């Protein structure tokens, strides 16, 4: 499978080869032709596809919400007698759910004033922070042709290392935070690096090794958490750590009324770093070369084995940053073995949605953070289970990955092709051979 775990390829639409038109019309006709072509590219292009994919996914989500809603089911019993009731019930359930989703993730109109109303947006960014970090790690591994399912293990080890420094070591403010973050990065990087080393040295498949290391990390951290003197809170029998010392906690970005913490800045920095690494640095070039074709890279003189190791070190460190953000930013009152909160797996979808591009992952992370923040308020306000968010998220990724499908649903033209009404007349003679 090593060959198949390529970074998400170019949008599949690219496969449909654009029609070649060597004899483009000239003169006056060319201007309007160009405009219509540009319009076609916009409506059929990837931005439009992304918007339509989100829209389609929300429609499917709405159908599911309406189908399982009790008032709707009741109203559907007498659909033919009073069809209006049914549609009113559908509208109630769907609009209620989605407005709760919006108000929980972006802006809450029920709160007085802008400062209180904008709070959901900061929640979104707080939820997005670890998703982006882990997504960057997974995406980086994708670019090197590796599939890092080990997010859980890398996050746990990083959280444990950073957490231990944060509550057990006394250091001046500022330095303490930096040391804790570094400890976490090293922890995550080492846990990821094991995978790269094993793959490079013995050819062990990274999918197996990362899955196994997830379990190893889980049990290791569980052991540390329930053993007095290691990670367990003194005087407690719960498998939980003591609270982090205030000197090692990410400061609040917007004051104490908001949960958004400075960890968000580390994630922005990480995104810039990954962008620089992949598109501007020598190492990043080697990463991409190996990801495209390890054999060709080897022939070109790239040390593929060391690329695997360094890629997994960096990938593990980035995923570790997600764990650090959890313990030093989001849950500072002490953590248990569930601190990873399934972010390691969510990150895979984030990386896929972002097409393994750093800024793509950043915005995908923000989008999924919004779904997470809004999902909780939707569940609380409307009783719609938060699992619907998973459905919508996965459908978005699925639709975005298959532009031809979205084009077919909305009857959009394929960019780079000509309108069907004006078939191109082949003027050239066809020569054999």
């Amino acid at each position: 499978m090593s060959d198949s775990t390529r970074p998400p390829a170019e949008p599949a639409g690219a496969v449909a080869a654009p029609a070649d038109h060597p004899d483009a019309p000239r003169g006056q006709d060319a201007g309007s032709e160009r405009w219509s072509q540009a319009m076609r590219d916009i409506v059929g292009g990837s931005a439009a596809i992304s918007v339509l994919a989100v829209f389609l996914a929300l429609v499917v989500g709405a159908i599911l919400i309406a189908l399982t809603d009790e008032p709707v089911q009741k109203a559907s019993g007498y659909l033919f007698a009073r069809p209006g009731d049914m549609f009113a019930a559908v509208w109630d359930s769907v609009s209620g759910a989605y407005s709760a989703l919006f108000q929980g993730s972006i802006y809450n109109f029920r709160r007085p004033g802008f400062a209180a109303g904008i709070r959901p947006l900061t929640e979104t960014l707080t939820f997005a922070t670890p998703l982006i970090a882990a997504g960057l790690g997974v995406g980086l591994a994708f670019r090197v042709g590796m599939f890092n399912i080990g997010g859980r293990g890398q996050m746990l080890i990083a959280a444990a290392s950073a957490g231990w420094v944060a509550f057990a070591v006394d250091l001046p403010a500022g330095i303490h935070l930096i040391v804790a973050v570094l400890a976490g990065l090293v922890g995550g990087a080492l846990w990821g690096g094991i995978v790269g080393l094993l793959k490079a040295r013995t050819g062990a498949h990274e999918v197996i090794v990362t899955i196994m290391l997830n379990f190893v990390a889980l049990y290791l951290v569980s052991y540390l958490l329930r053993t007095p003197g290691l990670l367990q809170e003194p005087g407690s029998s719960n498998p939980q750590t003591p609270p982090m010392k205030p000197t090692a906690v990410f400061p609040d970005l917007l004051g104490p009324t908001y949960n958004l913490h400075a960890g968000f800045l580390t994630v922005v920095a990480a995104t810039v770093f990954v962008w620089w690494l992949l598109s501007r640095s020598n190492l990043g070039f080697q990463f991409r070369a190996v990801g495209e074709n390890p054999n060709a890279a080897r022939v070109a003189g790239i040390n593929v084995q060391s690329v695997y190791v360094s890629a997994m070190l960096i990938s593990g460190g980035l995923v570790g940053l997600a764990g650090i953000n959890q313990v030093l930013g989001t849950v500072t009152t002490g953590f248990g073995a569930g601190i990873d909160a399934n972010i390691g797996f969510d990150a895979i979808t984030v990386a896929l949605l972002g097409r393994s591009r750093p800024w793509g992952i950043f915005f995908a992370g923000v989008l999924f953070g919004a779904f997470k923040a809004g999902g909780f308020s939707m569940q609380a306000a409307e009783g719609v289970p938060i699992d619907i968010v998973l459905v919508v998220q996965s459908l978005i990724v699925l639709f975005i990955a298959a532009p031809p499908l979205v084009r077919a649903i909305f009857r959009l033209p394929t960019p780079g092709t000509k309108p069907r009404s004006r078939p191109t007349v082949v003027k050239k003679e066809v020569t054999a051979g």
Partner: protein
Amino acid sequence: MSTITQTVQPSQGQPALSTVVLRSWKAAIALSIFAVLGLLIFVLLGVDTQGQVSTFRLSQSRDLIQLPDLVLPTFVTAVVSSILLFAMAAWSIWITTHSRKVPLWLVVVFAVVFMIGFLTWAAAGSTIPVPGLFVGTITLSVPLIFGALGGVISERSGVVNVAIEGQLLAGAFSSAVVASITGNPYLGLVAAAIAGVLVSFVLAAFSIKYLVDQVIVGVVLNVLVIGLTSFFFSQLLSPNAAALNTPERFPRINIPLLSEIPILGPALFRQTFIVYFMYVAVAVIYFGLFHTKWGLRLRSVGEHPKAADTVGINVNGTRFWNVSLAGAIVGFGGAYFTLGSVGAFNKEMTAGLGFIALAAVIFGRWDPLKATLAALLFGFASNLQNVLSIIGSPVPSEFMLMLPYVVTIFAVAGLVGRSRPPAADGKPYIK
């Protein structure tokens, strides 16, 4: 880790023949590490077990043939097995220096001796029910084996199947609902297969028709199925648990005679319909894959689609239907959760087993029999944790729990090494 020795043998008047010998030290190194590990654990950590005995119960009370309990002195067994381990490790080194391959049976014997030493040490002063160990192994392996078989078929035909988890979960969900409504577990089994096929249809359509990266589709399908089943569970199943989520379970069928075989009989032949069905499935898939026209076509499509196309095989059609078949097989595994073991559907009840099945596919090198064995190994490992946590063990339970996964990493790194997938695995075929 591999060294290449070139021996040139010039002889009189004849052209020089050169032979290239590839020496792999991986197996020898792995065995040596485990031998040292064994010494550390069984002997050094087990010094205080002197005078204690470990009991292995070989029969259950309702067995026809009653075997006496096997009582081993803990420390002596630990020392003996440690010596044996070192002897075998030394032999493997000797074999390697003589440029021969370490035979597989040596590795297997090594593993068995290691296991005996480990169990004896862990069970110091208590009793291990050996038949129970095997019964639990089969119980935990069934979904893994179905998942691995589906993975093998799908990947052999050239479509990476990361969606095993989703197919299992879909199978579990639909079989629970259908078996609850109809009261018939066999209909539930059919529903599970259909659900698995539906997930496969999406996988096949997106990866074959829309040429989306197959790993992406697989991962996303997992999330989609988790989301859908959890959503329906919260909205529909838990409010109407009596009507929708109390499936009729398969009755246990004892096969006469065979079920009375000591030690293994209860594990293999006192099982439900699904398990017997699984035995048949393993055999049929193995035979079909390597000895029939269907299998040849399937493998050719996965290895070299262009060549297959040239001789007139419909590549994408073959892939589509075989991925669907794989979905049906994985779906059966999902039904085992609700109709065989647990008895009701629950959110995310497959708990990542689909990924372990994927690991079994790779560990088993895309071969149905080896993948089945790998799945059994994982099942044994997770069952061992349960047994050991019941009898209580001398080291923290977390480390016992960790051991199978560490062993797997060592095994993958040291013994399996670079596993080679089907050549066209994961690559869409564009005519």
